[in-house]
């Protein structure tokens, strides 16, 4: 499988069903940006800004947060139990059907 289906709910509650390639070393933040969704990614994907924070709505297992992601989410606003940083989530076939919602901006 080269593309997977992902649903991204933007901050207005609008659902965007997008195709995400699994063979381009992309992460979820980059997928959002490629579809021109309002993700700023101020730090360029280094888990330093939390502007790509999203909530995982579906029950996909994304594994544990890594140390950088965990540390950033300790400091960020609007953090929930299902918060993740899009820049730290690589697009793999296992994520087919993933549903995420963009977290509010400051």
């Amino acid at each position: 499988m080269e593309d997977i289906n992902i649903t991204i709910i933007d901050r207005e509650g609008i659902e965007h069903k997008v195709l995400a390639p699994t063979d381009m070393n992309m992460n979820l933040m980059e997928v959002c940006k490629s579809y021109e969704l309002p993700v700023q990614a101020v730090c360029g994907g280094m888990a330093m800004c939390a502007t790509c924070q999203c909530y995982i709505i579906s029950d996909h297992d994304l594994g544990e947060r890594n140390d950088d992601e965990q540390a950033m989410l300790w400091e960020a606003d609007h953090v929930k139990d299902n918060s993740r940083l899009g820049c730290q989530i690589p697009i793999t076939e296992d994520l087919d059907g993933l549903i995420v919602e963009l977290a509010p901006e400051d």
Partner: protein
Amino acid sequence: MITTDILIIGAGPTGLFTVFEAGLLKLKCHIIDALAQPGGQCSELYPKKPIYDIPGFPEVLAGDLVDNLMKQIEPFQPGFTLGERAQTIEKQDDGSFIVTTSKGTQHHAKVVAIAGGLGSFEPRKPTIEGIEKYEDNGLAYMIKDPEVYRDKKVVIAGGGDSALDWSIFLADVAAEVTLVHRREEFRGALDSVEKVQDLVDENKIRLVTPAEVLDIKGEDKVESVLLQHNDKAKRMEVIECDAFIPLFGLAPKLGPIADWGLEIEKNAIKVDNTLDYQTNIPGIYAIGDVNTYPGKLKLILCGFHEATLMCQSAYQRIFPDKRYVMKYTTVGGVNGFDGSRKEAEKAVVKKIGNH
């Protein structure tokens, strides 16, 4: 009033490199930035993170890139207005501009180059009702002059490098330093964490974790903060202090620039063309991450390119009757405004052969 040829708004890599390109054309630059130090998000967010796509640098730390840019522009003696946000702009009859900052500093320039990245970085403020009342009355979101805190009782909140570094620094300046963080783990350089631990052991820093500042008390200025310990009992504690410094990082906002009459598209300034990155207001350019145009890529190296082309256009605007000829630094060298001169060594041609 500060006067200059090109007023650059934003001291990130693109803004800094603009000084160099302008300097080659003998144009003076002055830079405004809302942050207290140059470097933009490179310095503020990830100074210790490597960047791999700067030409000629297989790997360079963001902070080192900024240091190198500062060194590169040193001969051109740029002025800086730091810790102040560009607030208003007024076009003058002669086509020049007056830009006034949030603190009232006025700048007069023939050309304005907005290199504001994703906007001015505004401090993330804690959600405390009426917090604005204490701003500049004991409450600060960034430290510009540590001497302000000499012999004062200071409470710092935060868990990143800034909170750690300033706690360490102020331990030798302030009368008391209390560091409050809502977690027990800190996101900072290991040596900073260890240094704070040493100072805590020496009773030079009081560490309160996990805890959060919920309120500020004081008639006209900060007199104490109310904090809640994040333990089971949710114990409350009042800490008397002269200053409260929450260092919770920064968030980019386009800010007042959005009200300057510039054409904005998707939170970026639209430029009419990619020949010179001029905005819909002649004389105001937008370069780097702050602009948008078909095919735009938000990369530092693209900002450098845009700065170079913009400076040529600015030169023509300032000197419409002069013909500008692009020069190579390999030929013309670099002639600093400080009298310094760099130029390539001249090769000595020797005749070879039998005579």
